[in-house]
């Protein structure tokens, strides 16, 4: 990073205020991982295909590898580190994680679906999870965990 081009930004990260000087070209993914030490957010492809770096930006899931950090100025960013581990039991029980590299991104999307069950009126869980690539599970464990977290009648089907 060259110092003369640094810009200052402030945003809310996992509920706490953050102020940083950053490179204008810096990706949110790198800011989180290498500058702030929040390594739960993973890089899988660097081009928005795999979803391993999914975080919430003002409440919506986004790929942190595609977000220039300066764009989160004044926004709310939430990462996997902010999640309540108590909500993750179905993911363990259904075998939703194997190698774990896609898992934080999967969990972020899955819990977002759970928070917006109205989406299941128009989309299946499989459609809603399709932005998160997993190479280990074949997706059944993930889809079942999302459905289990929604209660007895998920509506969206498998």
């Amino acid at each position, binding site marked *: 990073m060259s110092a003369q081009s640094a810009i200052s930004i402030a945003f809310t990260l996992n509920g706490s205020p953050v102020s940083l000087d950053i490179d204008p070209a810096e990706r949110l993914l790198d800011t989180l991982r290498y500058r702030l030490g929040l390594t739960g*957010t993973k890089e899988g492809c660097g081009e928005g295909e795999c979803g391993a770096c999914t975080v919430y930006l003002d409440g919506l899931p986004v790929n942190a590898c595609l977000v220039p950090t300066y764009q989160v100025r004044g926004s709310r960013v939430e990462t996997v580190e902010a999640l309540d581990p108590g909500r993750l039991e179905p993911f363990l029980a259904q075998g939703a994680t*194997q190698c*774990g590299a896609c898992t934080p991104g999967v969990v972020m999307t899955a819990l977002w679906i759970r928070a917006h069950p109205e989406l299941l009126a128009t989309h299946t869980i499989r459609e809603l999870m399709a932005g998160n690539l997993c190479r280990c599970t074949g997706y059944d464990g993930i889809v079942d965990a999302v459905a289990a977290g929604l209660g007895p009648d998920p509506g969206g089907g498998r």
Partner: protein
Amino acid sequence: MHRREGLAKLTGRERYVDDLPLEGALWGMTVRSPAPRGRITAVRFRPEVDWSEIVVVDARDIPGPNEIILIERDQPVLAAGYVRHVHEAVLLVAHPSREVARRAAGAVEVVVAPESPALDFRVPPRPEQIQYGRDNVLKRLKIEKGDVERALAAAPVVVEGVYETGAQEHVYLETQGMIAWLEGDVLVVKGSMQCPYYVLNALKHALGRDEHRARVIQAPTGGGFGGKEEYPSTIALHAALLALKAGRPVKLVYDRPEDMAATTKRHPSRVRHRTGLTKDGRLLAQDIEVVLDGGAYVTLSPVVLSRGIIHAAGPYSCDNVRIQGRAVFTNAVPFGAFRGFGAPQTLFACERHMDVIARTLGLDPVELRRINLIRDGQSTATGQVIRDGTDRVAVLERALTLSGYREKQRANREFNAAHRATRRGIALATFYHGAGFTGGGEVHLSSRLHVAGLPDGRVEVLSANIEMGQGTLTVFTQITADRLGLGPEDVVIGEADTARVPNSGPTVASRTTMVVGRLIERACDDLRHRLGLDDRARGGAVRDAVLRWHREHPGQRLLGEAIYERPPGITWDDERYQGDAYAAFAWAAYVAEVEVDLRTCTTRVIDFVAVQEVGKVINETLARGQVQGGVVQGIGWALMEECRFADGAMINNQLTNYLIPTSDDVPPIRVAFVENPYPHGAQGAKGLGELPIDGPAPAILNAVAAAVGADPRAIPLTPERLMEIADFGLRIADSRAL
């Protein structure tokens, strides 16, 4: 038991190599060959970078032989004046800033005087393309049983076919990565890997160090699928060379495009079958020729070829079999270990060929398999007499029942009659997969494992076998706890650190649960014996004895040990390729149902049933997940995953245009296990990890053939490829109004 490290993974607390904090580390980058073959005539350092800030390593910095030691020693750590494939590593650079290191790597120009590359493994090389031996053949192997020529000459029917498979990327979600640093005189390398002792051996050889000055630690590994079997030796050496030259820690982590372009992939294959049969479909002779694209260095191709040819005749009984295999040199990135290790390629050919035979003879593909499936007392191509008590026909029947095969055949006929632009089809594959190293491999490995009794009364498993998602930590915990009557919380699985753990062999070949798990059981028994306990001592008795031992032997280590012993009755003749190729086979029947859109030629798998006999299932959730993941990886290989090459370089080396299945591309994978405990595996388990990728591709292509009447013989069966081979012209015209 739930996955042991599951919560750490779900909460993002698990630390992979790129997550590890490293004080004062440099970032390493690799400068690669731009050409498939030729002499390096110049390496230019362009002036836009301040080179005084950059650590640069080339082949002259290698203290020992410039060789990545594996089966052969033909592959250099860094190209020394000559390159044999695009993206071959030539030079390494490092800098505290990743961005500066990346710019520096981009500012090195490697100039190559091009020579004629061998790029198609299916055609004989021209003289000027010969670069290995007399004919570019890296390895030839042959299996012979009975008299194939005579049997073919006498056979009432002979059916021939040629089948091809493409390269496949592993796409482990965590890319390859390694960090290296010095602790005093000891070089420590830590990273993503399946085989810590392979990496240690590679470091010792090329860096001229003994094991007291080199140490390898596996970091939590985000998927491997074979891609982290041999390749990590390369990146470990690169990180180590930079760290040695810089005198500082170095982190070398590939981004996705570099990982996809520069690392190993599944061997492309071409398999030719010539099969003699009776008119009612009994196998009389199988003549099979297997050719694999080995790429630019030998790496593991000889053993991939070995496993490939051993599985090539399928799970059938036939008195006359000849299988001839060769792995061929090309100027492509070396092809390497990938889940299944040659068997998925040859089983694709075998199982697709079975349906071609059935259609040629007018037989039901199910009946053709039912009459030929190997029965106890009959022998495989290598003459291995199968006597495991598994009813392979019952496995097939279970798959038919579970999938509703016959009902769906009827329903699909009605569906196809009623729809103008879509067709449905259902079909199957029956197959097997040998667990553990081939032939005498496990004896040669002579794996060693320890179970330690700790001063606090717990026990610790010390093994070199690693967790990469497949469940080693959990299953090892279960095996240990069950053997000693302890709770899972009393079992520690030690980090795979070559300074602490014995060499229990690589985490490959579906051997971890069956072979290494059995070593755990025996080491637990040995621990009990050392404590003066008999094999019935469990739980509190074991814990108390461990505590007592430590009170009486303060500061000493209490170790139970096991070394691999060949199960009784196993023999293998490596010269003639005859005998017991594997201590045990897992057996399976998979059924795929597809829907083909005649307008777009897209194929969608709409139902999949996977039935297998893998001995005893130790953890049902983990085992089911292995099968589901393997099947979906197989669906990708069958229908969409295509490595596109130009002049020997992969050109779609990103996830935007190398497509793997998403959750919306695949149906629920319905899994069932038939259990028949194997007496020499842990708790009766056989190998499982690789089996599920053998069956999907042939089952799916057979289903496409059943759906649309086309005859696809190559994968991936992309829409483009199906459009080329199938003539849906009339029907497309009909459907235009739809």
